[in-house]
């Protein structure tokens, strides 16, 4: 290490997040300021056609302009610059704390490719002959996923992971309706699968049975056998590995039993980052699966979308996929195939988020088979490395300690910390931004007490991992030795302690600036009714 670095104060908590105390955009409004001008027609045209608005029926004309802010472009640029800085995304922190989200680096080159005018300016309803570029990319991406999953057909229509589950549930319903077996009214999922694995099939009219974990943390197979006996099962929806990081080594037993009962097996492969080139949908004998192109396959999360849940399936289920599918033939070239009379319908407007598909394609093509395998191998290595470090921290424990091996993430618990110090995962989550990073607890309901879930994907270096684990250790120590800091946290974040009373009381809550002015004056001074 450079000797200069030795002399600097490199304490982990010497961090302060950008904090601009930025006004709400309406507070920046100044009458007369303009951000951008819209083109006007010439005077001749106006003379010919009038002001345009008069052609609208009078009852449909807006009487007064919408109350939008008036802000000059420089001021607007500055405002959004400030807001951008007040975030901690992958590009700003060691983002291994958002377990299950697979916060990996999104290569900039893929953003450039996906944002180029050759894609950005494409209208979805253009004739296929003008869209041979993007259709080819999507079709090739499908080919890559045929190999990655081991199945036959694909669709990029779903707009995210939960949406992918909804699409699979829609396919299941269409399939059984076509087969005349609509009395199959139940789906089976597991406790630690994503909540959407139960919720989405319920939206499609199914009943859900949730399997509990056994002592080891694997889905209870005896419970599964009992369920198959007592229910008419249409499909199973399982995440593997689950959010605990535990790989269900008996997964083939589950699919065997499910197939014996005639059920369709749907694989939630949101947690695929540790499996690429190692084990696939087909080895586990599933019939359908989905992958998150915005998680494992590197498309950035974008603050919460847009995204793609890439669905793959065996050819027996092709007819029921959402239409259209991207196909290729010698005569037609690449085209959108709408000819699916038994399709479950559509799950999205148009065809899916093409830029996300382009990014995933570019990412896979930059890595190849060896690269993908290396991604997963390093994800597993990184996770096991962190596990050892985290479990050495006083107050930390891991869920299901009897099952030692984990794949690419792990769910831990601060239960001991809570017993010893009174501080738990919620307190931790408030203090950790003071160190320039964050973490995530768990989906509800919390069965593991005081949970936190860490997923050190392959984007992070050994030094990054060491730093993050040191941060966890430092905060745990503070819980024992400096509780007053924990109570006051966050101290170095964008803002200070936010009152939680304003989020579940309809009289108090503020859902828009307009809502604020209706209820309050000054700074949260309630207006007299």
């Amino acid at each position, binding site marked *: 290490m450079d000797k200069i670095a030795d002399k600097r104060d490199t304490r982990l908590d010497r961090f302060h997040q950008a904090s601009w105390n930025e006004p709400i955009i309406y507070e920046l409004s100044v009458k007369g300021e303009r951000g951008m001008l819209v083109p006007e027609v010439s005077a001749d045209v106006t003379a010919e056609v009038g002001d345009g608005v008069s052609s609208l029926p009078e009852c449909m004309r807006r009487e007064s302009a919408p109350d939008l802010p008036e802000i000059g472009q420089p001021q607007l640029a500055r405002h959004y610059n400030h807001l951008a800085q007040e975030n901690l995304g992958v590009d700003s922190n060691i983002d291994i704390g958002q377990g299950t989200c697979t916060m990996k680096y999104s290569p900039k080159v893929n953003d450039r490719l996906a944002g180029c005018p050759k894609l950005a300016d494409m209208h979805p309803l253009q004739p296929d002959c003008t869209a041979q570029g993007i259709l080819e990319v999507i079709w090739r991406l499908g080919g890559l996923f045929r190999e990655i999953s081991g199945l036959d057909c694909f669709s990029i229509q779903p707009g995210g992971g939960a949406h992918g589950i909804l699409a699979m549930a829609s396919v299941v319903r269409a399939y059984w309706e076509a087969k005349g077996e609509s009395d199959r009214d139940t789906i089976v999922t597991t406790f630690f699968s994503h*909540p959407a694995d139960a919720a989405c099939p319920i939206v499609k009219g199914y009943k859900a049975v949730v399997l509990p974990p056994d002592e080891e943390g694997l889905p209870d197979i005896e419970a599964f056998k009992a369920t198959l006996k007592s229910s008419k099962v249409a499909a199973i929806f399982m995440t593997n590995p689950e959010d605990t990081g535990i790989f269900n080594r008996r997964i083939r037993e589950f699919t065997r039993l499910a197939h014996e009962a005639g059920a369709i097996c749907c694989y939630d492969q949101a947690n695929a980052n540790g499996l690429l080139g190692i084990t696939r949908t087909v080895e586990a004998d599933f019939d359908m699966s989905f992958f998150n192109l915005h998680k494992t396959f590197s498309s950035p999360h974008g603050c919460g979308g847009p995204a793609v849940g890439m669905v793959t399936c065996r050819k027996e289920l092709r007819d029921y996929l959402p239409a259209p599918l991207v196909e290729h033939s010698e005569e037609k070239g690449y085209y959108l195939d709408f000819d699916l009379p038994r399709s479950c319908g559509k799950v999205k407007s148009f065809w899916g988020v093409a830029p996300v598909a382009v990014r995933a394609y570019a990412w896979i093509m930059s890595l190849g088979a060896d690269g993908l395998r290396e991604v997963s191998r390093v994800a597993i290595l990184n996770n096991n490395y962190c596990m050892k470090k985290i479990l050495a921290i006083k107050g930390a424990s891991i869920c299901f300690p009897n099952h030692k091996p984990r794949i690419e993430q792990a769910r831990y618990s601060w239960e001991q910390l809570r017993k010893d110090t009174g501080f738990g995962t*919620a307190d931790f989550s408030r203090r950790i931004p003071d160190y320039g990073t964050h973490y995530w607890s768990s989906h509800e309901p919390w069965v593991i007490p005081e949970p936190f879930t860490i997923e050190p994907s392959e984007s992070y270096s050994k030094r990054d991992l060491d730093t993050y684990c040191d941060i966890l250790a430092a905060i745990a120590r503070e819980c024992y030795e400096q509780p007053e800091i924990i109570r006051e946290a966050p101290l170095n974040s964008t803002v200070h302690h936010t009152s939680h009373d304003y989020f579940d009381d309809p009289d108090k809550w503020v859902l828009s600036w307009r809502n604020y002015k209706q209820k309050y004056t000054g700074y949260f001074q309630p207006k007299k009714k």
Partner: protein
Amino acid sequence: MRIGFLVNPVAGMGGSVALKGTDGAETLRRARSLGAVPRASQRMGQALDAALPLPERVSFLACGGEMGEALLKERRFPCEIVWRPSGESSAADTRAAVRAMTAAGAELIFFAGGDGTARDVCAALDGAAIPVIGVPAGVKIHSAVYGITPARAGQLLRKFACGGVKELDDAEVMDIDEEAFRLGTVNARLYGYLKTPLDRGCLQDRKSGGANPDAYDRSAIAAWAAEKMEPGRLYLIGSGTTTQAIMEELKLPGTLLGVDAVKDRCLVAADLTERQLLDLVEPGNTTLIVTVIGGQGHIFGRGNQQLSPAVLRRVGAENVTVVATPAKLNGLFPRPLLVDTGDPELDRRFRGYVPAVTGYGRRQMCRVEC
């Protein structure tokens, strides 16, 4: 804000000298003679420490002497004495004190004790909707009104006093047969319910929208159960708040603690005795709906005694439906559900897996052991 403050000074004395409970004057004398020291005040003190700082407007309505006044004076809390025990404090004093606090406008009763104390508080409140927070001071507490630790109870008190509590929940009060307990068997029965503030964490699950309050889950379960009732079939609704929600969904007057019978969405009879149940049950055409009672996860054995082995045999193990909120099941995790009908052979029939209804169209497979 007026808060009732009560300490059962003898609670917990048995434990340190290996006596389970201090029910009855004789046991108390034995405990004292064995050198037992009152622990309840100490626990209550811990709770008060954790509750600081309390808002200025909080004032305590207390019970005289060792039942609360002494501790409050020691901590310099102003209080108004609403009841004075005459001589050695007893269960009767607990009940009288609580009634006095209610009359004086208490918004919450904060008490330290054990199952016996909880039972007395419950009896004295007699259904009044005043919430309570229990500070655990007794020996092996079964009642759910108690916080996990005195410190947690204290933190909850502060939250309540600051207006931070949005919801009340029904917490079980268990009646323990202390004599049997001392002889090694747990004979706990559901005595009743008390309202207690619900303590929800402030971390919101930003990715999938958060969990539901129990009241919501109960009404979802009830909606499902009511919808699935077949015409002409008899339904027996067991004790508990989750099963009670079914009666509310059907808009029928049910008993929280008793077993009620419903057919074609009409009330056939309420609060049935064992005899009445044996007469009423139609073998093959009856479903018994039960929920989980007590901290150990019992579906049989902690509710009321009317569901005797004879009644259960007549209903048939295959005609029992278990309903439970996810919160209840998660609290038990990873322990299984338990059956303790009193008849070991009957217990064995229930072993295995049961699909407990946990929401609308949603079930969770639970292991059942005996």
